[in-house]
């Protein structure tokens, strides 16, 4: 394993004296094929090298030598990397992020081209002092350091040190509030930094109104690199004076969750204390850790996310990334996630020298469509997001460093670069993200199109020369995992809904009812069971838990198919459970007390009058006439409808009505509802006034 690095090191030691004899910037005549124009720019934990390409070069070797202030070498020259033409999208301007060195030391760098395997002359060396650990040692707050920083990477930050550091950041910064979102099985707190400027909003609801972004830093206990980056980034955001960062933080809230799997981290295990891989549990939420996470997403409503991991495969880039690919994820969420990766990270990576690339580009059968994986779960929750892997192995472009401090620093500072870029991307693309999210919530609430139980969207190879050798595996759904005609709801029995499940840890077992509530789904109580309509924002995830055909479902609910689809002329008065989909109704629609109405994609020419219903779900309908929903005893969802006439949601008795993404040609009135209606930050377009409880929707 070590031999490649050693060989490179030995090869590199052959000529350093010669390079030093050559004064930098001297007008010495360039040798044939000698790299020109080498420049070095220092970043946090990395140095970006750039140079002028050499015609006909196959690749370039980057050499780093520790030097004293007078330029004399104080250590061994090492080949720290190889730049290959296909490693980033801008091939005409090569850049390489050299990383792994201990911060705050002086080095010199040289670059040479290779033609075939034949090395060409080195460039003139360029020396520089690398950035020290972020933060002025004499400024309170800025001078905090993690255990990992203080030990120069010899030790990762322990749980106890994390809590002390986290609390110190919390106490010293007005911009940070640390909240405990739950506890692990072994009772470790799961903390989250909530960061805003000048102060973060006071409640989850207020945070949700700021289009927050989320980094999940450590789900696998044996992959600690991202977590260290998160702890450093929290300090940077808390204590920076950088005007651009403060401007970004004044417009949003950043959520940093350093350690979801504290038990696994403490024992060095991938899974939690029961051995459960938590990144195979985000939909099922059998474990308290994943359940706490999903409840946090429900309450704080991040619009974008990154999920941090490490990856041992040598044949990949520095920073493999992947969007939510499950085919039930709304197209716009997939597209914008790809835009975040390919549009932002690939191009910024090309500027700063990091090789962001698609995960799964090595031919391995990874990066697929399991909805249990956070990347996909978040996509099904309409969150633009990506996986992030930190490549722990060496390979063709980086030395094999084993699990040394050098390797740890390269991984962590590449993660820090990514998460800072994520904040930049979010600030520059908030409008595109919120638009994609609004369209996704509206689309899902109309229960349109087929259901795929498991299977991925294809990811095209990036146009050559792309930052990966091959695209990720196709992972198309097989026929038996496609349901062409989606049901309108799933009906669960009392036992299915409220029976204690045995698939969680002893003493912390939960029911389906608790898990659906944690996801934030709405459920209608019937006399003989419970009805979970698909016409709600997380529609793509509903069948994956409640259909008998699901690959990793919770229960096999009864499919309730539409009861009415065609054209009806004349008045309609409804009792019982009614699922109307794609129908045309000409005449007034009246729903009687105790009845349920789930109506999607339907055209109604006439008034809709619903009084005392058990539940009302209206998604993607066109109504020519007034809509009155009064005194509903259960849930109310009114999303993505076009209404010519007034809309009134009155006296709802249960949870907050969802009134979002509607176009109302008339007034919107809400009053007497037990809980103020919400819109999940998906605005309604209302031509008339918005009254009372709906005034801000």
């Amino acid at each position, binding site marked *: *394993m*070590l031999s490649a690095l050693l060989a490179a090191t030995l090869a590199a030691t052959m000529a350093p004296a010669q390079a030093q004899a050559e004064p930098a910037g001297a007008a010495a005549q360039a040798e044939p094929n000698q790299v020109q124009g080498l420049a070095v720019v220092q970043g946090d934990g990395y140095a970006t090298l750039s140079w002028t390409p050499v015609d006909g070069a196959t690749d370039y070797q980057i050499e780093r030598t520790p030097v004293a202030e007078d330029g004399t070498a104080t250590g061994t020259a090492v080949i720290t990397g190889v730049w290959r033409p296909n490693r980033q999208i801008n091939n005409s301007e090569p850049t390489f992020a050299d990383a792994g060195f*201990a911060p705050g030391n002086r080095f010199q760098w040289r670059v040479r081209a290779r033609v075939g395997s034949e090395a060409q002359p080195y460039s003139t060396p360029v020396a520089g002092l690398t950035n020290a650990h972020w933060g002025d*040692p*004499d400024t309170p707050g800025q*001078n*905090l*350091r*993690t*255990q990992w*920083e*203080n*030990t*120069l*990477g*010899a*030790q*990762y930050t*322990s*749980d*106890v*040190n994390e*809590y*002390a*550091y986290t*609390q*110190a950041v919390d106490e010293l910064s007005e911009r940070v509030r640390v909240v*405990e979102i739950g506890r692990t099985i072994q009772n*470790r*707190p799961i*903390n989250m930094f909530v960061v805003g400027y000048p102060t973060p909003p006071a409640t989850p609801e207020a945070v949700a109104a700021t289009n927050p972004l989320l980094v999940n830093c450590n789900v*696998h206990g*044996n992959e600690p690199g991202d977590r260290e980056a998160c702890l450093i980034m929290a300090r940077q955001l808390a204590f920076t004076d950088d005007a651009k960062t403060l401007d970004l933080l004044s417009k949003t809230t950043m959520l940093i969750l350093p350690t979801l799997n504290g038990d696994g981290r403490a*024992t*060095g*295990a*991938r*899974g939690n*204390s*029961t*051995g459960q891989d938590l*990144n195979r549990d985000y939909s099922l939420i059998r474990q308290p850790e994943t359940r706490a996470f999903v409840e946090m997403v429900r309450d704080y409503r991040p619009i974008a996310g990154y*999920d941090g*991991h490490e*990856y*041992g*495969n040598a044949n990949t880039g520095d920073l493999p990334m992947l969007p939510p690919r499950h085919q039930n994820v709304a197209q716009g969420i997939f597209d914008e996630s790809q835009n975040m990766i390919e549009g932002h990270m690939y191009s910024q990576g090309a500027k700063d020298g990091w090789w962001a690339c698609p*995960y799964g580009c090595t031919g*391995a*059968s*990874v*990066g697929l469509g399991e909805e249990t*994986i956070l*990347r996909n779960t978040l996509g099904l929750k309409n969150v633009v997001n990506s996986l992030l*892997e930190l490549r722990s192995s060496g390979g063709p472009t980086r030395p094999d460093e*084993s*699990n*040394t*401090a050098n390797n*740890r620093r390269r991984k962590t500072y590449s993660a820090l670069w990514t998460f800072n870029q994520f904040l930049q991307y979010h600030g520059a693309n908030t409008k595109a993200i919120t638009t994609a999210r609004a369209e996704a919530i509206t689309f899902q609430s109309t229960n349109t199109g087929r259901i795929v139980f498991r299977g991925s969207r294809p990811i095209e190879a990036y146009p050559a020369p792309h930052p990966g050798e091959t695209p990720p595996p196709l992972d198309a759904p097989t026929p038996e995992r496609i349901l062409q005609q989606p049901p309108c709801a799933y009906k669960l029995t009392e036992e299915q809904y409220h029976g204690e499940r045995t698939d969680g840890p002893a003493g912390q077992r939960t029911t389906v009812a608790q898990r659906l509530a944690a996801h934030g789904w709405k459920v209608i109580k019937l006399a003989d069971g419970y009805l979970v309509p698909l016409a709600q924002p997380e529609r793509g995830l509903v069948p994956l838990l409640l259909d008998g055909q699901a690959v990793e479902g919770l229960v096999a609910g009864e499919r309730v198919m539409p009861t009415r689809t065609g054209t009806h002329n004349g008045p309609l008065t409804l009792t019982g459970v009614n699922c109307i989909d794609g129908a045309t109704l000409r005449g007034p629609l009246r729903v009687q007390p105790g009845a349920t109405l789930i109506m999607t994609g339907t055209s109604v020419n006439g008034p809709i009058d619903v009084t005392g219903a058990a539940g009302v779900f209206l998604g993607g309908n066109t109504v020519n006439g007034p809509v009155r929903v009064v005194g509903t005893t259960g849930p109310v969802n009114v999303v993505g409808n076009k209404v010519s006439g007034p809309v009134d949601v009155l006296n709802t008795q249960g949870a907050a009505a969802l009134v979002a993404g509607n176009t109302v040609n008339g007034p919107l009135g809400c009053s007497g509802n037990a809980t103020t209606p919400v819109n999940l930050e998906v605005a309604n377009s209302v031509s008339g006034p918005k009254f009372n409880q709906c005034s801000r929707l």
Partner: protein
Amino acid sequence: MSDTVLPGPYPGPPSRTRRLRRRAVTGAALSLLIALTGCTSSTEEDSSPAGRGADTTPVAVTGPLCDVLPAGDEPGNPASLVGQTPDQALTWIPVLTTFEAAVRATGMAEELSAADGVTILAPTDDAFKAKFSTANVDELLLKETETLRGLLREHVVTGAHSVTDLVAAGTVRTLAGTDLAVTPADSGARVAEKAETVCADYRAGAARIHVVNKVLGSLPDTAHEEEHHH
């Protein structure tokens, strides 16, 4: 090769208490968080665990991996580990996270601290990764700790032996009762005809620690059973 002889003026690892006190930052804990400002004047900090007994003891570790492990006056340098117990010392050698986790999971710390000394042949994280799947490591750490303890004992020899002594002995018996052949190698020693020392002759209390590049013992290989994926 690092032949570094330096004191280790560095605070030792924080206690790994299981007690979780979200609202309890002591002054001492907070001081650990503050940036070290470069001036590591030695005398004031000699009372720290990593400083004890590390004042004048020369420690020469040898092997190809030593160059990329903590050296000189860096935290975790070989001299700073001399005064520590073996289980503490393991926390400072970055490439031993799996082995160190295994020692904690099996409660082997006391056994490694035997007064008469032991020799620990500690496989690197890469060695564990080449031997076991991640799922298998999780099983061993979380559920099959008896099996894991047996595996660790295949890596521990009674008495503190330098790598030179091991080679001279030719064969050593582990706590598990297995005999390991030791032959000379460029890197130091070759053990059981498969593992080589990659950074040998760490001293920690009464123990010697030799970092090796293969897992010993008779457990089956499982690394091939999975892809390492997110």
